[in-house]
Every structure is written in C-alpha cells, then in structure tokens.
C-alpha cells in the first residue's frame, strides 16, 4: 500500500507537516521511522502485522537506518530489544494479544532493568476461542507489568504523536522506564485516517537521541541483570516505584512541550462537555469519538452529560480523575476488557 498524501508541506505553528491518509498501524511505523530508532525486533501477529511490515519496508528501502531483527517469537523480540537497549540503542517493537502474553516475563525484565523500550500495542481479544478482533483484554492483563508506562491513543494522529512523546518520557533520566502505546485492534489499526507527519528536524529537536543512562560498553564495563537477595531486591524495585511516581510529572511536562511545539492539546485525561455535567462517561481508545457523539445526543435530549477519556493508563492519573469528577451525580465506565471474575 503506498502512502496517500492529502496535502504536502503544510506550514502551521512553525512546523512543516505532510498531511497523509494512514492507519494507526502505519502511524506507529511512521513514528518509529521519524524518531529514527536504531533497532527493531518484532514478530508479526494480527492486527499489529502491518505496523512492523511497514517498519521493515522503511529499513529495506533505506528510508530508516536501523537494524531489523526478524526474530522467531515475541519472547525473542523483546529479549533482543532488552539487549539492544542495554547497549544504548533506541528500540521499537509492536505486538498484540497472544504476542504480548508471550512477552510477559520480559516485560518485567525490561522495566526492572530500566530500559527505555517503546512498544506499540494493537489491542486484541485473548484466546480461546481464537479471536483476532479488537478488545483490551491484552492490555488489561499487563496492567501491572513491573513498571511500564501505558498510554492509550484514540486516533491515528494520537498514535503517531504518543510514540514520539513516548521516547522523550522513556529516555528521561528521571524516568527510564519502558512505554507502551496502545490503540484499538482493527477499529484503529486498520482504519485509514488523516494524520500529519512532522518535519524530521522538528522531531529531532523534540526527541533528540542522547544517552542519559548507564549502558553496556566494553570500554567502561558495568553489569546488568544481577541477582538480588531480598535485602537488595526491594530497594531496587522501590526505585522503579519511585520512577513510576516521578514519571507523572515528566509525562505532563512532555505533553505541555509537545502541545506547544506541534500545536496539539493532549492531556492525561481528555475532557468533553464536563464543566456542568451531572453524568459522566469514562472510557479510552477508539470509541472516544462515538462517546462524544453520544454526549451531544444526550445533551440534545436535555441530559447534562459529559465524557472523559483516559489517555494515560499507567501510572493511573487517580488524583486528576478524582478532581475532575468531583460533584457529578453518576459515572458510567466503558471498559473494553472483560474481567471474567466479575459479573
């Protein structure tokens, strides 16, 4: 599939942009290309496949100078990136559902080793029965994955923007944690939308490649991946908790700077007609547009409705959420991940 350019070289807010028509999968691939990742290791799985195919195509065409490791499994994909990231590379992968489950033990290793890996997740239902279609059970399963920051996008533009921001957040020396950027399988991963791709120089200025962390370098040897007895284990893990806590401020800072630089309005929780709302719908992901439409219809029918979209899932913006919903009469939550234990 070739790139359909709707409008090339638009200048808005001091940044040159190409307005193109792409899916969220392609938006993820373009973001990986535009932040100039060094190493990509991925295994194809529906509905993520076009994302990593596109990255492979960029590398094969010479549009992105990176190492693509065609691994034999998702377990190996994340393992390869752990090694690459430990050696100082900027890394990217993408997966879905069973692939994410197969990566599971490595999720904890990536975060425990404080490696700023960025992963796109085209969310998908969990087998069995086998279902390739989109829900968020895979993301729900890795809710507590040892310190991954998780963002959920609700448009292809937001996927592209979030991945660019993800590198800034992950690589910040106050954070140094991996980041997952998720979006609806099929409903977004395979839906073509208009997306603005930014000028590379602007992205380079926003997310420069600088290594502000210890890396594996034979000239200055260090050890990573040690064993720690309980005396040390909890101290090292508490550093992760502390970094996760600090990340909230850094995520806000990065959002502010991104909004200012690229003319966007991203917040950890997006609000819609919330100011005088009695009833609030809280949701995330691709149904955000439908939710806002539903709020409009409810308002037309005389119901004071509003809606909130969780953009940041981990760390969970509890304080912000509690503050926003204070005083509303009722809250409805649309969570696209069923918990079989609760009816």
């Amino acid at each position, binding site marked *: 599939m070739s790139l359909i350019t709707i409008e090339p070289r638009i200048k808005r807010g001091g940044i040159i942009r190409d307005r193109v028509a792409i899916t969220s999968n392609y938006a993820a691939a373009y973001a990986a290309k535009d932040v100039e990742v060094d190493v990509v290791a991925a295994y194809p799985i529906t509905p993520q496949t076009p994302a990593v195919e596109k990255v492979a195509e960029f590398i094969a065409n010479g549009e992105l100078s990176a190492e693509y490791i065609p691994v034999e499994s998702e377990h190996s994909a994340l393992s390869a990136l752990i090694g690459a990231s430990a050696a100082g590379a900027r890394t990217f992968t993408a997966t879905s559902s069973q692939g994410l489950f197969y990566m599971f033990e490595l999720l904890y290793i990536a975060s425990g080793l404080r490696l700023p890996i960025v992963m796109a997740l085209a969310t998908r239902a969990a087998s069995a029965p086998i279902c390739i279609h989109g829900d968020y059970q895979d993301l729900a399963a890795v809710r507590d994955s040892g310190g991954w920051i998780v963002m959920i996008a609700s448009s292809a533009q937001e996927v592209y923007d979030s991945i660019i921001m993800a590198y800034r957040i992950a690589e910040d020396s106050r954070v140094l944690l991996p980041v997952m950027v998720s979006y609806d399988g099929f409903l977004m991963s395979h839906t073509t939308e208009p997306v603005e791709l930014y000028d590379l120089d602007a992205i380079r200025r926003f997310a420069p490649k600088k290594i502000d962390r210890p890396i594996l370098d034979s000239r200055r040897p260090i*050890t990573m991946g040690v064993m720690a007895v309980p005396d040390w284990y909890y101290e090292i893990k508490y550093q992760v908790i502390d970094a996760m806590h600090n990340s909230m401020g850094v995520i806000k800072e990065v959002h502010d700077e991104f909004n200012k630089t690229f003319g966007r309005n991203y917040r950890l929780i997006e609000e819609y007609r919330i100011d005088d709302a009695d009833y609030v719908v809280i949701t995330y992901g691709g149904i955000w547009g439908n939710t806002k439409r539903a709020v409009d219809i409810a308002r037309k029918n005389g119901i004071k409705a509003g809606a909130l979209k969780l953009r940041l899932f981990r760390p969970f913006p509890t304080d912000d959420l509690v503050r926003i919903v204070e005083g509303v009469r009722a809250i409805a939550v649309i969570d696209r991940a069923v918990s079989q234990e609760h009816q």
Partner: protein
Amino acid sequence: MSTGAWTPPKTTKLMGWRELPAIGGYIMEPMSTTKNTTGSWRTERPVIDQDACIRCRTCWMYCPEPAILELDKPYVTKDGRRYDLTYEIDYDHCKGCGICAHECPTKAIKMVPEGAEE
C-alpha cells in the same frame, strides 16, 4: 592464606533505595564479584596434595569461579620434582563444586566435607 576452615562471609553494608549507586541493580564497577565471598556456600572443600600435583593447570582451566590460584611459589615434592608454581584454593570464593577434583588427571585433589579434618 586461608586454612580451608569455614569462616563467616564478609558482610557488605546494606543500602537503601536512595543510596544505591545505580538504578536497575546495575553494578557500575568491574571486578565487583571479587567482593562477593561465596565460600560459605560450600559443603565440601577441595584439598590439593602438592606432592601428587603435576602442575598441568587443568583445575585452573576448569574452575568456573575461578578459585584456583596459580602462585609463583617454588615447591619441591617429596620425590624431588621441582616446580616454580604452586596451585592453591581461594577458599573465600570456592563454592565446593568439585569440578577440579573430578578433572584432576592425577587425583591430587580430594573433596573433604566441611567441618571434617583433612
């Protein structure tokens, strides 16, 4: 020189999460495992019979730690063989795996239970 008798491990000062020199459990200096005395893990200790030893270096090569010390220490065996080198055990780090005793071509290394006399 260590006698081979069990000694309690050297303790390292414990540090809280704010004091740790790095994140992620990284160890920022090479050779730090030398400080990590693993001798207390041993249930049996290797003892070298210096007269039976032919200085072939096999134990030194096979030791995974490495806890076989190759010392510039001349030795004359009871039957008059002269050696410039002596092999001894670093009991601070030897975990007592017994590979040296297993590999020794002259059976010069014996594994002796800890606490027992040689």
